[in-house]
């Protein structure tokens, strides 16, 4: 007789904790990541590896030693930027899923400036980065104009632009921009003096990575402390009410979208001038796609940082995992898509439980 009420109280306590986790954005995101890592480990068991070992090896590959950490950070930086490229326009209800395409074109622009312009290194670097940012914005301009003037769905146009941009860049580096001395599709390299300087000097960590953190923080401050940030928030949450309150919503959409594309462009420039030094076949990983996932899971500029970090860890640790456990690194790609799916499931579960709770209250 005594145990029954105790057990039910316990149950309801767990239930409360569970629902409160499901009601917080961050809680759901973290839960989704944890669940997908668990799933990855479980999948690894199919290859005969021990799940716990797989997770440990992943972390070891990404975090043990300076070199590993630098690689993880270099991986994380473009993911953060591509996530911001989704996040900022999404505030104004523009779903830019074309970060990848903007990044490709931006990289191309940076490479062209870096290989053709000569002058003071600082000037050339700034010019190249500017070219990258502008190229990103020009790339989004096409879907943006189509959306604002003709109402074309930006989801379709930006996705399609990804393919157009990627293959356009590929076509150029196999043809007119191909380095005559290269055996495979690759452009000429950007001269050493025009590359982004590293800090600390003898590491491979370029200064662009620091800028990424600064950009994320600036975006966070902008959203919280500026009039435009608040207007952007209002426009994204209820466009009609914002319009009726005299906020020029269309201008906000255009500016937010351009700002997002500029982030993707920065990522492209940073990769070329800081990491790859040239554009070659497969020079860019699918940061744009990963960025979409991170933007949705992160939910805020500062929330994007830890999530990008986790996914970067998984990405860099993958090769080490393959070497150590025999689990193919491709499995990691499976895992990168999972958090979003799980996230959506958990969100719906949260809503379902909430509705049930309301029903119960009404029933009482």
């Amino acid at each position: 007789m005594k145990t029954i009420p105790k057990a039910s109280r316990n149950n309801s306590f767990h239930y409360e904790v569970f629902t409160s986790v499901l009601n917080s954005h961050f809680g759901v995101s973290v839960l989704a990541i944890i669940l997908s890592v668990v799933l990855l480990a479980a999948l690894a068991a199919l290859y005969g590896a021990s799940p716990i070992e797989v997770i440990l090896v992943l972390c070891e590959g990404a975090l043990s030693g300076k070199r590993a950490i630098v690689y993880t950070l270099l991986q994380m930086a473009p993911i953060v930027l591509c996530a911001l490229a989704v996040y900022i326009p999404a505030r104004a209800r523009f779903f830019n899923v074309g970060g990848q395409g903007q990044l490709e074109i931006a990289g191309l622009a940076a490479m062209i400036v870096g290989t053709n312009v000569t002058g003071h290194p600082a000037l050339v670097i700034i010019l190249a980065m500017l070219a990258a940012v502008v190229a990103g914005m020009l790339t989004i301009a096409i879907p943006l104009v189509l959306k604002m003037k003709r109402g074309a769905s930006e989801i379709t146009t930006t996705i399609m632009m990804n393919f157009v941009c990627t293959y356009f860049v590929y076509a150029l580096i196999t043809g007119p921009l191909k380095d005559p001395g290269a055996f495979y599709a690759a452009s000429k390299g950007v001269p050493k003096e025009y590359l982004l300087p590293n800090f600390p000097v003898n590491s491979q960590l370029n200064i662009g990575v620091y800028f990424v953190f600064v950009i994320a923080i600036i975006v966070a401050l902008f959203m919280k402390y500026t009039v435009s940030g608040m207007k952007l928030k209002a426009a994204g949450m209820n466009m009609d009410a914002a319009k009726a309150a005299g906020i020029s919503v269309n201008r906000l959409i255009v500016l937010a979208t351009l700002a997002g594309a500029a982030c993707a462009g920065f990522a492209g420039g940073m990769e070329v001038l800081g990491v790859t030094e040239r554009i070659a076949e497969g020079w860019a990983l699918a940061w744009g796609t990963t960025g979409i996932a991170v933007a949705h899971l992160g939910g805020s500029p500062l929330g994007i940082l830890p999530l990008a970090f986790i996914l970067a860890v998984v990405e860099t640790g993958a090769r080490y995992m393959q070497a150590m456990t025999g689990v193919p690194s491709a499995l990691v790609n499976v895992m990168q898509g999972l958090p979003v799916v799980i996230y959506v499931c958990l969100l719906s579960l949260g809503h379902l439980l909430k509705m049930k709770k309301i029903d119960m209250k009404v029933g009482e």
Partner: protein
Amino acid sequence: MENNRVIAPTINMKNIYKTFGKVKALSDVSFYLEPGEIRALVGENGAGKTTLMNILYGMYKHDEGEIYINDEKVPDKWSPYKAIQYGLGMIHQHFSLVLHHNVLENVVMPTLSWTDFKPDWKACEKIVRALIEEHHFDVKPYDLVEDLPIGQRQQVEIIKALYQGARTLILDEPSNVLSPLQVDALFKLLKELKEKQFSIVLVTHKLSEVMSVSDKITILRDGLHVDTVETDKITVQQVAKMMVDREHMNVSKSQRKLQDKDCIFEMIDVNIENENNMVHCQDISFILRRGEILGIAGAAGSGQREISEAILGLKKINSGDMLLEGKSIKNDSIYMRRIAGIGYIPEDRHTYGIVPDMSIAENIVLDCVGLPPFSKRGILDHQAIKQNGKTAIADYFIKAESEAAIARTLSGGNQQKVILARTLMGKPKLIVACNPTRGLDFSATEYLRKKLVESAMNNMGVIIYSSDLEEIMELADRILVIYHGRVMGIIDRENVDMEQLGMMMAGVSESSTQATEIQL
């Protein structure tokens, strides 16, 4: 369908009650329909006419009362599916047609079951052709519905009902979307159907049409059955009076002298075109004095929304001009108009009023956040916004935990108070209030009305429209009556004649005693 002799069922609805939440939609309404009759069911918006027909057709379940069809009580689980089997057919205001399919497919589709992989189209087409032939419909079986004008789409809906064996047709506001010529064609068709012993229920608020086509008129008001009369034995004025008359219509005398006040807002020959062919507002002109409340009366969708959105700048005007304190505002942006002193209490507060996921404090400063003291050089002053929210909560009696509470969590009345606080704190010169008390409880309604009158006392101009005529009667100094986007006239509240008001709202012009439709 086998023979040409159709006998419509007699329909007897006894003592029907229906409530939606706290709203009594119908109380103790009885309805009796004989075969071969055209019955008009008239009443203001919200009188319960569509609800009654939806109950008959099985869309809603009545709380109390009984329905008999051919003296047989309908089963407990009454649904449109069963209603069709009993020979009922309802044509809703919004058609349910698949645009990319042709007429034949649209007509036959509802009768197919999912196992019919290969329907016998030839046989179906024969029946549909016979129907079209018999009733002189103006469509062909292989016309695509998306290519048809609206009047012919309505015919497709009627064919669909007939194909399913309907002998009693219920048409909900059939003439709303039609041009006068199409209306004539429709009524001719209905009369022919009547000759063939079909019975027809016409749900409408347009009295002129009712007089020309119906045999009997049933008048509903506030969910009550007022009377059922034969059309020959009543005048349009009497019907209008029955539709709008109320016992407790408190027409209080205005204590304010308005004649000597100057004009604060003026609308001159404004034309507003609507994209989707709904209402075109034509030649709207009126003036509003300082301290005056102007009520816009008219059936829902007569153009009051378009007028208010035009004042706000949400809708572009095609010609004409609008003057605020003598200065034209027609080229100003929404923001400039807000700053110039136009406050807005929107009709749909969830869509155009609040941002549900923002806090109360943020919602209140939504339109003036770019101005001091709430921000300086583009940087928000969170402290000032918070303080302003606190003041608003205290001044406007908003029931909330704090100014940081998310607007979504508030009740409708308190959300409306947030909008009211935002509007009045901006010290407007003109307030446009659209259905401001819709969905509010009694105390919130009273509070809002009191505030609007207070604003007028403080020399602001107020334009209000409401689906509740009583509200306009209580608040307005003058009433602008519109019908189908046209101004029918402006009446002073002091010498308002309910009969005349009702007729004007129903599109019967002031001077003529005969029922004359304003041609569009």
